[in-house]
């Protein structure tokens, strides 16, 4: 790690999609008119595919190096050099970012290709791809940034693109509102991220080596031990603040409310941004900064429990949703919760592993859902679907594989990754059986709601109207091909991270230079197999209930809904009333504050302004009086006195020379007398 290998191609991984975004963003409208949508598709997809090629090349280069030397950097220039703050514009690839760039460019590239089919009817085709490319570039900045500040640039960039793409069909006011909601809720998290970053820099600076570079921060991390702020350890405070940022991006309680609404965007956006990549930024960030998080057990505790709470809560909400995309959205929130359980028990490698497998099967699920929506003429209500199995074979089979993967069916990817997290939750020093239990419960519900969706969409009688039924069709190749590739990934991606009992995780070994491996637990293989069996049984139970309810219709879901007077059903269906509570507290609170501010303005500020105006007028009036009566009086009095005196003295001027001469004589005589009498 001491001698990073300087390269000059990493920048192109970021710049290629950026160039695509710039070309499509500035010239897209003209290109689309002159050369058609094919040209736009090419400009959008080619850079991402090239970037994927470069990522593979970087990955192979890393693989060829010794484990402790796996570190490539591409330093462009010094971005900020201000006092002790020195920030480079530098991209780096180490084993962790290598995984991320492969996922972002690989899954991202497939989704780009899929979107060229999905969005084909849209007039603003070019705008969509400009933003999608820009998003890819921002996400790549986020994962390849060599320092926290540059990472924040990507962090904000993906937030912006997410906002723009959720509100892509902005003509519908609800979509624009969903975009706003995502942006504003993320803002809250970003504020935490910024404060955390400031705090880290500030405390490093206090130690004499201010830095934001990950490598240097890792090197100096130990110097922060024992530093305190307001009686709390700086590391705990900073990691908590950074985790607030992660809850915003990765949709954890209490900032998860934006993600389900984000489904207002086009489905490829949901797949790329709100399932596979952007929402995992929080997990990536915590894994990247694992050297801090590992030294803050309190923070880890908070993360683990928030993750478990989110996983369970989102799973319960997903049980009741009827919108095909919303089920997947809550499922995403729930799976992100699992990743944070992984982080919270210091199993960063497991979290990243789940992130990767999740990217495959969730992207596949979303794209499958998109394919269904496409075929159903933009119908998203599952109650109006059904029986699509025969008319859409590719979609059906890929969807089936992904459902099996996410439900934790043995030997599919989701099984390995989820199981590793649950295993760590049980055995890690930061974990506890309770945490494990919550996770397993969530896993059971995951199996239930995913199979419920699967059966509702693909089996049974078709409940769509006659017109839609007639036009049912499989999606074009450009859409089914990515589905097939992703489904293959959903099956096999898990085999890089086998549990210890089957030979140990290659994946964890690969990440070892970045993420120190958790010490070899000496738990028995029997325990590992036992826990695995429990989670398989719970998942199978979930599947079985879904099968009985929605396939065999052996008993009606309403019977469950009516349990406890329908209390739970209402609670889940209304999403635990989060939106309502936020509406009352934050939105109305903000409005109330605004109204108070307006009143304050109206009465106090305006009062002061008006008062000072009146006061000025009064003073001017006084001033006028003073001018009119005193100053003018003095001036006039002087004039009058002069005039009067002149009037009196003019009588002296008689015109008679004799009298003048007498005057002179008298004056001279007087002068002589005075001279002789007083000055002699």
């Amino acid at each position, binding site marked *: 790690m001491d001698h990073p290998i300087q390269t000059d191609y990493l920048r192109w991984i970021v710049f290629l999609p950026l160039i695509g975004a710039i070309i499509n963003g500035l010239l897209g409208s003209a290109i689309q008119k002159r050369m058609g949508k094919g040209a736009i598709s090419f400009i959008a997809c080619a850079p991402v595919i090239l970037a994927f090629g470069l990522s593979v090349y970087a990955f192979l280069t890393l693989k060829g190096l010794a484990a402790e030397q796996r570190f490539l950097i591409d330093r462009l220039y010094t971005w900020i050099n201000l006092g002790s703050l020195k920030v480079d514009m530098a991209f780096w690839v180490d084993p962790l970012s290598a995984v991320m760039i492969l996922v972002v460019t690989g899954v991202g590239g497939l989704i780009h290709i899929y979107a060229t089919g999905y969005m084909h009817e849209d007039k603003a085709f070019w705008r969509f791809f400009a933003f999608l490319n820009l998003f890819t570039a921002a996400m790549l900045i986020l994962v390849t940034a060599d320092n926290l500040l540059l990472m924040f640039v990507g962090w904000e960039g993906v937030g912006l693109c997410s906002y723009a793409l959720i509100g892509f069909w902005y003509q519908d006011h609800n979509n624009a509102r969903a975009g706003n909601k995502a942006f504003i809720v993320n803002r809250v998290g970003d504020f935490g991220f910024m404060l955390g970053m400031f705090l880290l820099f500030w405390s490093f600076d206090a130690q004499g080596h201010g830095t934001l570079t990950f490598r240097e921060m890792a090197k100096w991390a130990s110097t922060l031990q024992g530093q305190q702020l307001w009686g709390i350890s700086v590391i705990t405070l900073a990691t908590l603040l950074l985790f607030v940022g992660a809850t915003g991006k990765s949709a954890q309680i209490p900032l998860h409310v934006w993600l389900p609404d984000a489904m207002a965007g086009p489905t490829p956006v949901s797949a790329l941004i709100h399932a596979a990549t952007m929402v995992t930024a929080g997990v990536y960030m915590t894994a990247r900064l694992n050297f801090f998080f590992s030294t803050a057990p309190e923070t880890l505790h908070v993360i683990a429990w928030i993750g478990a709470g989110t996983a369970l809560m989102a799973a319960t909400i997903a049980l009741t949703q009827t919108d095909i995309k919303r089920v997947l959205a809550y499922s995403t929130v729930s799976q992100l919760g699992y990743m944070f359980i992984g982080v919270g028990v210091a199993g960063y490698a497991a979290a990243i592993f789940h992130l990767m497998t999740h990217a495959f099967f969730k992207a596949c699920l979303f794209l499958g859902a998109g394919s269904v929506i496409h075929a159903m003429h933009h119908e998203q209500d599952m109650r109006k679907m059904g029986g699509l199995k025969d008319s859409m074979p590719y979609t059906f089979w890929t969807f089936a594989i992904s459902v099996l993967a996410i439900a934790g069916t043995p030997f599919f990817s989701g099984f390995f990754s989820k199981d590793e997290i649950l295993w760590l939750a049980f055995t890690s020093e930061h974990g506890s059986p309770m945490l494990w239990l919550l996770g397993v419960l969530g896993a059971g519900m995951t199996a239930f709601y995913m199979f419920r969706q699967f059966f509702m969409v693909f089996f049974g009688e078709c409940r769509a109207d006659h017109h839609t039924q007639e036009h049912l069709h499989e999606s074009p190749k450009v859409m089914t091909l990515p589905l097939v590739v992703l489904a293959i990934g959903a099956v096999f991606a898990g085999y890089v991270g086998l549990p210890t009992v089957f030979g140990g995780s290659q994946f964890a070994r690969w990440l070892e230079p970045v993420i120190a491996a958790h010490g070899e637990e000496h738990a028995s293989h029997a325990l590992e197999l036992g826990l695995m069996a429990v989670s398989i049984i719970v998942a199978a139970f979930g599947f079985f209930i879904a099968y009985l309810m929605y396939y065999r219709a052996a008993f009606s879901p309403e019977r469950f809904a009516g349990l406890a007077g329908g209390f739970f059903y209402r609670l889940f269906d209304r999403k635990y009333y989060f939106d309502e509570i936020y509406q009352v507290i934050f939105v109305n609170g903000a409005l109330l504050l605004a109204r108070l501010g307006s009143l304050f303005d109206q009465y106090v500020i305006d009062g002061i302004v008006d008062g000072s105006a009146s006061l000025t007028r009064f003073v001017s009036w006084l001033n006028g009086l003073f001018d009119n009566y005193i100053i003018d009086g003095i001036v006039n009095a002087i004039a009058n006195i002069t005039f009067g005196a002149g009037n009196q003295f003019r009588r002296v*001027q*008689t*015109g008679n*020379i*004799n009298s003048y*001469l007498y005057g002179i004589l008298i004056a001279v005589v007087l002068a002589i007398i005075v001279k002789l009498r007083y000055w002699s």
Partner: protein
Amino acid sequence: MFSPNELSSYLIIGAILFSLGLFTVLTRRNAISVLMGVELILNSANINYVAFSHYSSGGLEGQIYAIFVIMLAAAEAAVGLAIVLAIFQIFHTIDVEAAETLKE
């Protein structure tokens, strides 16, 4: 009491002459007479010049000044008589009180 060679006797002559001139100027209404009084006053000043000069340095400064004053008196008489002529043409008299209306 007054020796003829003493300064004071010249000064007394000058003073008498001045008083006569002043009296004439103050009392006469005839403009010509007033001018004549002025001449007397000027000549009394001449006597003083010459006397002081003689009894102090013995030089000719007093006489030079006296000649200047005589010249001045001539000019003054010329201007004064011209004014008197003008007054006479307007008021048909040379009484100085006739010219009172000039005050405004």
